[in-house]
């Protein structure tokens, strides 16, 4: 069964392409900054220089190296994605599992909490966080994204749990005297592991997009570079109008590529895990 999944995984073009793209960006984001001698905010070159051998992505209005910013930005973008995605997945899973498994008023209550978070504009939460911490960082941003973007995941997991809960092996585990948390963790969750993984991927992608939106309206991290912040800066300094497409295009294209690759991966994985979708 495992090998079978692997077999299909290697043959699934979507999955392979998606994974390769993510891997390339990931490596660029993790290793890239180490190969660059300067900080992303340093004024290292001539102002507004188009891409060249020295500055691959050109320079900003101030003569900062766009490529360096891009690499550092990738790093924080991945960080936001992973942290935010993990946090949202964890919260979504806990809420979804508990609501779906316990049912009754627990379900009712958790559904309500889910709805509240669903309708609360995410911006508000950032405001609080900002208020308490004064300075926003990538971590804080990820934290709040994680804390606000889980509702749909919770709902989906709840529905899945609901249908799994009535499966006999769950009852059997209960008959074996296993306690609820353990049943959820050891019986139900493994059964939807591929689903959970897909959920995580989607949350990962959406965390990146949300972060980009926040960065763009000026609620981004105040202490580091991210792709969204680059976009924000490029827009504020009218990069496109001034002909500096090399400043404006890469961050957006980077985000699109990463998130797009994640989505493609998601579909690919779906096809791998779900025998019905496999192409023979």
């Amino acid at each position: 069964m495992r090998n079978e999944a692997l077999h299909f995984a290697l043959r699934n073009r979507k999955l392979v392409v998606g994974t390769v793209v993510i891997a390339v960006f990931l490596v660029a984001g993790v290793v890239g900054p180490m190969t660059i001698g300067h900080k992303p905010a340093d004024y290292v070159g001539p102002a507004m220089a188009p891409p060249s051998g020295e500055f691959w992505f050109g320079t900003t209005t101030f003569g900062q190296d766009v490529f360096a910013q891009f690499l550092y930005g990738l790093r924080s973008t991945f960080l936001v994605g992973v942290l935010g995605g993990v946090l949202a997945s964890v919260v979504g899973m806990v809420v979804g599992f508990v609501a779906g498994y316990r049912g009754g008023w627990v379900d009712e209550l958790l559904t309500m909490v889910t709805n509240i978070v669903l309708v609360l504009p995410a911006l508000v939460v950032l405001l609080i966080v900002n208020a308490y911490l004064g300075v926003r960082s990538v971590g804080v941003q990820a934290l709040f994204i994680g804390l606000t973007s889980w509702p749909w995941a919770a709902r989906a997991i709840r529905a899945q749990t609901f249908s799994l809960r009535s499966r006999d092996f769950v009852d059997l585990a209960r008959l074996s005297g296993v306690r609820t948390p353990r049943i959820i963790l050891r019986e139900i969750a493994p059964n939807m592991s591929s689903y959970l993984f897909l959920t995580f991927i989607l949350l990962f992608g959406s965390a990146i997009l949300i972060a980009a939106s926040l960065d763009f309206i000026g609620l981004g991290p105040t202490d580091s570079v991210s792709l969204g912040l680059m976009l924000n800066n490029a827009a504020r300094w009218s990069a496109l109008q001034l002909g500096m497409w090399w400043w404006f295009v890469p961050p957006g294209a980077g985000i699109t590529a990463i998130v797009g690759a994640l989505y493609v991966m998601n579909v690919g994985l779906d096809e791998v895990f779900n025998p019905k979708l496999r192409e023979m």
Partner: protein
Amino acid sequence: MLKLDGVSKVYRVGAFGGRALTAVSGVGFEVGEGEVVSLIGESGSGKSTIGRMVLRLTRVSGGTITLDGKDISSIRDRKEYYRQVQGVFQDPFSCFNPVFRADRVFAMIKEQYFPGVGAREWRKRVEDALESVRLDPGNVLGKYPHQLSGGQLQRMLIARAVLLDIRLLVADEIISMLDASTRIDVLNLLADLRARGLGILFVTHDLSLGNYVSDRTVVLRDGKIAEMGPTPLVFGDPRHPYTRSLLAAVPRLHTKWTDLPAAEAVDDLPCAYHEAAQESRTRPGLAEVADGHFVACSGGGKAAGAALAKKTLAKKTKETA
């Protein structure tokens, strides 16, 4: 040992949860040590619900279920309860978590109930249990559920119950999935277990199988008991028209349905409950027509009873399930 007393169960159903559905109402019977009680009745008559209530997987809406005189819902320690009472469900495939190896069901038991037993010792016990259900341990251990046949899985579940040295087994339609030859193997196994003193609540809708293994039979209809008593009595001398119609519908080898006496004959039966003497109505709604053989009213006086029986049959052909 196990005693149900006026047990009922109400579900809330309908689009907006507005309707109440009484799946089981006022059911009472006992299962003694080393006794097989089969619970028969058409689909939806509440058989599984009773089984689940006994297993504490569903809460009881009314009445009490007692084990050795102790209300099971008052037993705080579920684990203790499950050490004595276990269940095997209808669908062996869904009883195994498809992502794990099948023998995980044994590991789970060990973890929860026998944490102190050594690995070697445990393996021996498992192998013994498997052999007692006539499975070759080498053949089934370490395999994934989808690599095993339904019959094998089913027997592993029984072996699992056996490992615990339980006193009562709830076997809910454990054979409907199997083909004829595997069925027999499983049934024989149950019979052997009974011989070792295990009480079994055998849920089925296949009457010939119920007849094959059980000591006593409870016929359920719409959540109520229609008839119950020692199996030979219930099958040999069915007093309730419903039981008769069920029996008539059983496909038999060598006898075609068309060869059976016409259904009309059934309809003329008097209502056994009302025929019976007042003092024999020892249980609510049930009259004791013979030693331990109880029958419920088939629906009022003799005529009414007949009419009802007729209607039921007509309904049967019109609308099943």
